[in-house]
Every structure is written in C-alpha cells, then in structure tokens.
C-alpha cells in the first residue's frame, strides 16, 4: 500500500461517515419534541396557516421521504428555508461560516504554535521548573472559563491599554475588501488591501487568543506525555551516543514520532472549537455561525439547525481527514506495507 492508496482509502471513508452523520442529524432534528411551524408563525396564527406551512415544509411526509428530498436539495446547494431569517440556510451559512472558520483556524494555529514547543520543553525538563511552570499554565488555561477570559482581555487590552479593538470583525476601512472567500484576512490579501488586513487582524487577535486557551493546554500536555514516552526509546540513546545535539534529537526525531498523539488531540479539539466558539462569538460580538446555530436551536428552526450541524460535522470530518494525511506523513509506518512493530 502506497501513500496515495492510503489517502484514497481514507478520503473515501469520509463519505459514508458524512452520510451517516446526515441521517442522524436529520432524524434527531425531526423527532425531538416541539412544533417548528407553530413556533415560526407565532401564537396568533390559525391552525390552517400552520397546516399549510407544515405541508409546504414537507413535514407531513414520512421521514425517509423528507430526507431524500433534503439530500437532493443539498446536492444543489439548497439547504431549505430558515424560519427565522426567511432566507435559504445556505445563504445564511455562507455569510456566517467564514467568520467562524477564520476565528477557529487562527485559534488552532495559535494553540499549535504555543502548545507544541511548550510540551517539548516540559518534556525535556520533566519534573523540573519548566515542566511545573507549563503544568501550572495549562491548568490555569483549562480552568479559565472562556467568557470570563474574553472579558478580562477586553477590559485590560482593549479598554485600559487601548491596544486592540474589543468587538466586531473589522473596523471602518475603505475600501471594504471584496468578498471572495469570506475570510477577511484572505480577501484583503488577495485585494492587496493592507488597511483592511491590519484592521481584520487586530480584531481577530483577542477572540482567537481567548478561544485558543483550552487547546493550548491540551496540546502542551499531550505533547509532553508522548514526548517523554518517546524520549526513553533506544534510538534516542543511540543518537545521543553518536554525539548528536539534543535539540536536533528532540525536534527532528522525538517530536516527529510523538506528534501523532498531538495530531489526534488537534483534530478532536478543532471540532470542539467549532462547537464552543459561540461563547467567544457572543462576548466579542463576532458575526459567526456559532451564535446563529444557538439561535436556531432555541427557535427550533430545523433547517438552520440541520444546516449548521452538518457544516460543523463536515468541517470536523475534513479536519480529521487532514489529520489522517499528516499521520501518514509523520509516521510512514501508518501506510507502509509489511508493517511490523
């Protein structure tokens, strides 16, 4: 089995996972109690009007039929109408998803860039002060509720020091970047619009840091423990015996081998971030998908609920597919034939 075959196998296996996910979400959204049509039209609507809306939404059909109908729409980019906004859910998501995606991705990048070296340093100095400092820092990060950390950052950095903006996604800049991907950093770079880029970046920093606190801790602790385990291996002693500098051993050899478990955590945390971003989005008035999703659930806006959950699920699947690709890169034995050990 070559690397390419491994990738194809992994890639294909995401399709049934996505289908299974869609069945589950679609069914759950419809079997949980509540009357979406009644909620949408309000208490004063007549029974006939409610019946008519139910008919129009296809809620009177058997579930399997509704599902097939929904999937047919999905293939054409139609996710059904949102009961709150009155627009197509796909249109809503196109507006909100890039903001959340930009935020969570940057938060994850921060978490990796900070967490991995922190874990390696802690692992190299097991039970010495750098390890204890990193442990304390991680403990602090995990136990800090994000809404509180966000408010603290706003208070000190945005209001007291005035270094960064407290809320929103972009300031008053002209020209406003043309929307191509919806990711402001990417759009402004494409348009070579430096003013917009700087403003967008400044708005991103605080929410991204807030969101990255918990994954930084996860990644640092996971990297530390797998690093320590790997650092005991014979080949490390061998390299040291040959007089190879410790930093090269740590970062080139040990980290690469122990990175697989860090990758697993990154994949899982990314899904967690997509789901939990809404607290941060609310604190920072971030126009993202998470707050849209929460609103949809509270209002029992079933199409929006299914749409948001599917997008989060798909993003999660894609991220984990990328993680699988990277597994194969970091440890060739994953895809190698004649795999032993």
């Amino acid at each position, binding site marked *: 089995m070559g690397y390419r075959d491994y990738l194809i196998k992994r890639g294909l296996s995401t399709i049934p996972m996505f289908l299974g996910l869609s069945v589950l979400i679609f069914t759950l959204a419809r079997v949980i109690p509540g009357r979406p049509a009644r909620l949408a039209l309000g208490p004063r609507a007549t029974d006939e009007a409610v019946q008519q809306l139910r008919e129009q939404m296809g809620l009177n059909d058997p579930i399997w039929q509704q599902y097939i109908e929904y999937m047919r729409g999905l293939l054409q980019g139609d996710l059904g109408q949102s009961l709150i906004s009155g627009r197509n859910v796909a249109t809503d998501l196109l507006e909100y998803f890039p903001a959340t995606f930009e935020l969570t991705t940057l938060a994850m990048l921060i978490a990796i860039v900070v967490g991995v070296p922190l874990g390696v340093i802690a692992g190299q100095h097991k039970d010495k002060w750098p390890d204890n400092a990193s442990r304390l820092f991680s403990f602090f990060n995990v136990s800090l509720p994000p809404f509180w950390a966000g408010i603290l950052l706003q208070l000190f950095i945005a209001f007291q020091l005035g270094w960064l903006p407290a809320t929103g996604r972009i300031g008053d800049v002209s020209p406003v970047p043309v929307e191509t991907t919806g990711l402001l950093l990417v759009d402004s770079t494409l348009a070579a619009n430096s003013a917009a880029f700087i403003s967008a970046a400044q708005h991103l920093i605080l929410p991204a840091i807030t969101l990255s606190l918990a994954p930084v801790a996860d990644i640092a602790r996971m990297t530390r423990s797998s690093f320590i385990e790997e650092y005991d291996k014979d*080949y490390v002693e*061998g*390299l*040291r015996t040959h*007089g190879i*500098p410790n930093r090269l051993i740590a*970062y080139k050899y040990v980290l690469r081998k122990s990175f697989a478990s860090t990758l697993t955590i990154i994949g899982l945390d990314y899904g967690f971030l997509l789901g939990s971003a809404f607290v941060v989005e609310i604190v920072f008035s971030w126009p993202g998908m998470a707050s849209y999703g929460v609103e949809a659930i509270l209002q029992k806006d079933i199409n929006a609920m299914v749409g948001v959950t599917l997008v989060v699920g798909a993003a999660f699947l894609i991220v984990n597919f990328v993680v699988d690709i990277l597994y194969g890169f*970091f440890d060739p034995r994953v895809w190698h034939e*004649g795999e032993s050990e």
Partner: protein
Amino acid sequence: MTDPILDVHDLSVSFDTYEGRHDVLNGVNFTINEGETVALVGETGCGKSVTARSVMGTLPRPPGDITSGKIRYHGDNLLADEDAHEQVKGDQMSMIFQDPMTYLSPVYPVGSMMADVATYSGRKDVSSWEILKSFLGHRENAEEIRERSIELLDRMRIPDPEGTLDRYPVELSGGMRQRVIIAMALINEPEFLIADEPTTALDVTVQDQILDLLRERVTEQNLSMLYITHNLGVAREIADRICIMYAGEIVEVGRTEEIFDAPLHPYTRGLLDSIPKLTGFEGSGIDGQIPDYTNPPSGCRFHPRCPAVMRGTCDMEPVEHYAVGEDRTVACHLYEDGMEFEEAAAIAADEATYDNEEPQPAEAGVRSKQ
C-alpha cells in the same frame, strides 16, 4: 609498550533506586591497547552495559552516579570535565547496540539518520534553521555523505546499498538493520568502538556473518574495540583478550586462548562449564544468582556461589587483583600475587570442578590460603 588507548581505573558506579543504593560497579579495572579487541564477558546484570555507558558518557545521571575512578582515553581523564566526553563521542569513539529493532528511528529512512550522524556528530548545538534544513534533507555536502554511506553499506555487504539508504527500518530484516547500525557507527571513522552485545538479538547464522564483518572492519581500519557479550563462544571468536566480570567486578583477565585453556577463577571455570556442547550438555552450570547490589556479600562477591570457597577467608577478606604469570590477573584468594602461571594452573586443576553437590563447608574449611 605504548600507552593503552583506554584505561579504566577503579571505576565505581552506584544507582539510587527505591530499594536503596545499588553499588553496581565496584572498582572496575581494565585497559585496551591500540588495535586490540577486548571482550567483557559476564552474565546478565553483572554491570557490562553500565561499564560501556560510563565509558561512552551516556550513563543516565541521575539515577546513576560515578562515585570513584578514572576513565583515561589516550591518557586524558574523560570524567575530569563535562566537555571531555562530548569531544570524543561520535568523532573518535562510537558504539553499536544490542537490539537492531529499536536503535533506528522508525520514521526516517536509514540514510537520513546516517547523514545526521555524519553531519552533526560532536556538535554542541544546532540552530532552528539547521533543524529545519535537516528535516527537509538539505545539507551542504549531501552528495559526499551519500557516497560515503553507500560505500560503507557496500562494505557491510548490504545488497543494493543505494536503495537501502532510502528505505525505512521496517523494510529491513534484523541482520540488515544491524549492518546499518554498524555502518552508522563507522561513518565518522572512529578509532575506538564499543559493541554492546551486537549479535545477541540475531539468528546464529546472521550472528556469524555480523561477527565476520565486524572483525574485517576492525582489522582493516585498525580499530580498538570493547566487545560486550554474555557468550564466551562469541568472545573467543572476536577477542584478543577477555575480561570476566562478576557482580560489578572484573574477576579475571587474560589472553583469549589462555582463558579457555586454563581458567583460573572458579567463576570463569563455571562459565566455561555452562557452555552447551553439541555432544550433549554435561556441565552443571553455576548454582544461584547474581547477588543483590544493595547489600552485596562481604569479602569476595562470588563466595556464596563458589565451589572452592574457603570459610573464614573468602567471606571476610576483600579480594585483590593478583598478577599471575604475564598478562594475566585473577581476583581470587586461591592465588597469590606474582605466582607463576604453572603453579596457578596446578591449583586450578586441583580444585574440584563444578559438580551437582553443594559446596562442602567442612572440606572447604580445612583448605587454607597457601
């Protein structure tokens, strides 16, 4: 006679464990001359690998602690300062290991690891930029290193040396991996090699090939070697001299033929007796086990297992190394310093060989040190 390349003098090493302090090495002495192969032989747990790691400077400290002694390499004491080891490690001294399955990084092709040993050996630190370059496989003299690696692998009789460089360890058999490990140890052209049971994990046939290759390298490059093994048969094939080790002490040193012809120390005799022969196993081995290092036996550490034990002497008085004849030392109360070899051999022959009976205290008691 010229100075020895390696002179280990009175080396003592302890380990701190939860059960207490283990005095694992207790005054180890031996020398290795230039171009000479010395085998360090003893049963598992007698401190062979600790000796090797102390010489190589890779003893984990803590828990290990070198409490006394000198390791002189070309006359310089390697224990004198921290940097001394770093300077000779990899460049002049090199080491090959017991288990070829675990001493190669599984995530890099073997050529990448060899190139790193060739490039970064003996360097104190590397910059992040260099780590990245090494990771991406860029280095200044990549061509030259690759050619050198191919040549070495070819000398180790690896078929398709060029292809092997790009393979991962999982794709190679145990024998091939051990050849790669030896090639890697030789890439910086060291003059002193430590081999820590390099054939123990291999099939007997492969073991023979590896020994042949190793001997060939040693003679061709005039290497000096410390060869560690528990197998006297292997030691006989490769070594010029043999040091027999028991419970952290060297008990007998002599030229290989002499050790086999006339073992003096009762432990050496026991070891030789324990070698299974094709004609059937007749020896009885040595009863008992290596003693506990937290509370080693008083006097001679071997006396509880010794068939020739002399009560009142062996369990009381610490043994010294007695020079017997030329180039032979033995640490046993049966002998005296400066004794002629023939006389010592006669005493050895006189001693009861290992039999199945327990050592007889009464009989041992009347025997006295001459």
